């Protein structure tokens, strides 16, 4: 077993402390900034009763208590899964967060299912042709891709599709088609939901719509992975075992598959994991602003605008947990596939 119990316990404890720290810091920051959640909770009251309404709302939200008590209660609520209702929308916070998360996550999963293989193939090809024309073209391309602003690229994709093909990649699903085919979201991952329901029309519709934003977001992981893969493959090709295999006349494809690619998988997984969390930020920016898809970015911004501190905090906490989980999973995966790694 490459992963020790001790490591896992340490990791969980550390993650717990990180989440606690994030809660305390974010809660304090959100409560201290102007914008009284009690006003919204009381229903923007007017007339002589307004002062009473806001006072009662403040009490109901627990905002009349000392800050440390508020934070302690909030932490308790987070870990018992009861953050309560959203201040602005009056529905459970978990519903608001889940709805935003699934949309963004679906987009990211498609992005990486496309981006990782492309990056690895380009990097490998470049390494095999190192010093050649193809290598320099790919390397230049990788640098350009990794440094292209996603927001700008998203707009360019949108304009090209619209001007050249007359297509507007817009929204997440065709509302009319969803009604006509009786599509019912179950998990919130529309690609999965439509497949489960055997609704292939909706599946194709959702799939076609996810491609343009996924393409825009994928340039960063493609650029990074191309460069990393090239370096890793080039290094692996100089390893003694590879050189010995070449000397023994082992087939080129076998060498590549068995000795080279296998050895680079662990670092590729690690880099993908890191850039996945980075791409989350890209997705939050382009999904709603350019492609009209709902998601984490617009919900977070909106909750901040509306002083909905419960939704803001929940999103921050879940994003932190998401970050931790992705990184932990990457470490575990690395230890599982690379016998040299012991955790």
């Amino acid at each position, binding site marked *: 077993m490459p992963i020790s119990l001790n490591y896992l316990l340490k990791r969980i404890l550390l993650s717990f402390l990180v989440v606690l720290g994030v809660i305390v810091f974010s809660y304090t920051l959100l409560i201290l900034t102007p*914008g009284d959640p009690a*006003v919204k909770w*009381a229903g*923007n009251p*007017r007339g002589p009763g307004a002062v009473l309404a806001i006072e009662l709302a403040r009490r109901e939200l627990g905002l009349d208590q000392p800050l440390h008590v508020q934070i302690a209660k909030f932490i308790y609520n987070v870990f018992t899964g009861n953050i309560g209702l959203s201040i602005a929308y009056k*529905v459970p916070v978990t519903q608001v967060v889940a709805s935003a998360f699934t949309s963004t996550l679906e987009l990211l999963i498609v992005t990486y299912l496309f981006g990782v293989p492309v990056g690895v193939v380009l990097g490998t090809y470049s390494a095999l042709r190192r010093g050649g024309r193809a290598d320099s073209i790919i390397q230049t391309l990788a640098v350009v891709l990794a440094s292209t602003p996603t927001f700008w690229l998203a707009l360019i994709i949108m304009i090209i599709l619209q001007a050249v093909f007359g297509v507007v990649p817009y929204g997440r699903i065709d509302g009319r088609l969803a009604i006509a085919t009786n599509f019912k979201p179950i998990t919130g991952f529309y690609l999965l939901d439509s497949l489960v329901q055997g609704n292939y*029309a909706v599946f*194709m519709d959702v799939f076609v719509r996810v491609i343009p934003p996924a393409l825009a977001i994928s340039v960063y992981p493609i650029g990074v992975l191309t460069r990393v893969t090239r370096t890793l493959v080039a290094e692996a090709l100089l390893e003694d075992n590879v050189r010995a295999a070449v000397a023994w006349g082992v087939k080129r494809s076998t060498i590549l598959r068995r000795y080279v690619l296998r050895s680079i998988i662990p670092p590729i997984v690690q880099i993908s994991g890191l850039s996945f969390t980075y791409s989350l930020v890209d997705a939050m920016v382009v999904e709603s602003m350019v492609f*009209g898809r709902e998601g984490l970015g617009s919900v977070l911004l909106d909750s901040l605008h509306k002083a909905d501190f419960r939704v803001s905090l929940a999103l921050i906490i879940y994003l932190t947990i998401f970050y931790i989980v992705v990184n932990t999973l990457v470490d575990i995966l690395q230890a599982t596939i690379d016998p040299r790694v012991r955790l």
Partner: protein
Amino acid sequence: MKKYLAYIGVIVVIVILAAYFLVFYKAPETAPKRIVIYAYNDRITGIDPSLEDDTGLVVLGAVYETLTYYDHVTGEVKPRLAINWTSSEDGREWVFYLRRGVFFHDGTPFNATAVKISVERARDIYRETGRGLGYIWDAVEEVEIIDEYTVKFKLSYPQRLDLLASAAYAAYIFSPRVLEYSKASHYTDKALEEWFNRGNAVGTGPYKLVSYDPMREVRLEKFNEWWGWKEINNPHAPDVVIIKIITDPPAQYSGLIAGEVDIACSVPRETVKDLVSRGFKVINQSTYHNFILFFNTRRYPTNITEFRLAIAHAINISTVISQAILGFGTPASGVIPRGFPGHVEGLTYPYDLEKARELLRKAGVEIPVKIELLYQVDYEETNKFAMIFKSFMKDLGIEVELIPQDWARLKDIAKGVWTDPENTPHLIVADWWPTIPSPFDYLYTMLHSESKEWNFAGYVNPEFDSLIYEAWELEGVDYKLALKKYEEAQRIIYREAPVIGLWDEIRPYVHSNRVELPEGALNPMYMYVVRFELVRVRS
């Protein structure tokens, strides 16, 4: 070798399946439905018919009905769930005769009991907790059921109850059976509020609520048993309405172009011409949504009337309208928008730099002087206004520090005028749309000294206060005299300028050729509400 064969096998199966679905699969055929997708610009803040005070109106307006309906064209109150009404001479007793043969979406017949509990719930929650907009029923002492279809309201002071019954908020009638559905112990029980806001609604409106996701979309379905279908005779009304939340104006524009939005309420103004050239139709709807500049009357130098008037005369509102809102507005005359009851013409401050300089001299304020302007950052128009305003003030030698904030923070800072005026900005730009068709809505809320949550000017004038209370009560006895009192109150505001009206908004509603929006489908009293029952969908 076996391994390769397995790989190839899997790939072949995937390719065949994909090809099969792409080529042969057809969406299950269902009866064609007239579906209308309406792009709305904000997430829904709740759908409790008695308590909702904000964006939920867009849903409530289609699912529920009020006793009366305010006709913005004629300024008259029209029958809705009440077919007729009478009032006593002193305006303290009102009898409403209810429409027969009306059913709620759950099949429960509409009657006087429903009216009684709906009104009492909004009023009682307001009385007990101050929440919601139930203050509109503040005068109601007793709701007496005379018979199944007659209900009498006894008031503690005179009111125009027919006008109040047409309010955009807190006047919706819901089924008495909601108590049973929600398992609430009483109509004021929090459990009922939570039940509504979870996405439940039982009204009598032409559309019933089918699904509710306040973050994404709300789905409505035609209520075939609605009493009004035979009256409006619209066989092309939508069967399904999707209220799609699209907060970004450019995304609404893209939605129209992509053919996935039929009606959009918030496209970027600069795209309207382009949309027209692409064949879309535009309805430039005059609204009761106006923008107002508040002066902090409790801090130097905006506590000096001449200084405030100097600023008022230095704003070239025509430039603001053409540059900040691309012509989608009309210069405000006072704080009550055009077309709204009690609006008075001639309460504008002509752009006159000479006069402004003279007033500035009279004010005795040493120039250059620095003042702060607080405005809402997420409104494109207020952002542009702030820039233009800054350049106007430069002409007077006044330096303006811009303080952009989102609405929640703006409100929190602005109401500091009562508790900490020295640290509250000198100027605040805010906007308003009404709940009830009465000048009281604007004048009381924004300028009465009791209204500490919304009077961002910190304005106190006992004469003004008593005038509008007097007018408010007179509305129920002598409406014309009441309007005169309101006018008198507005003239005080014009002279003292604690606030100045900037512009009344014109909102371009853009729709595709798939749908037709006849006159009456939009009503500024019910902001953003589309009367889908009047919309015609082309096959």
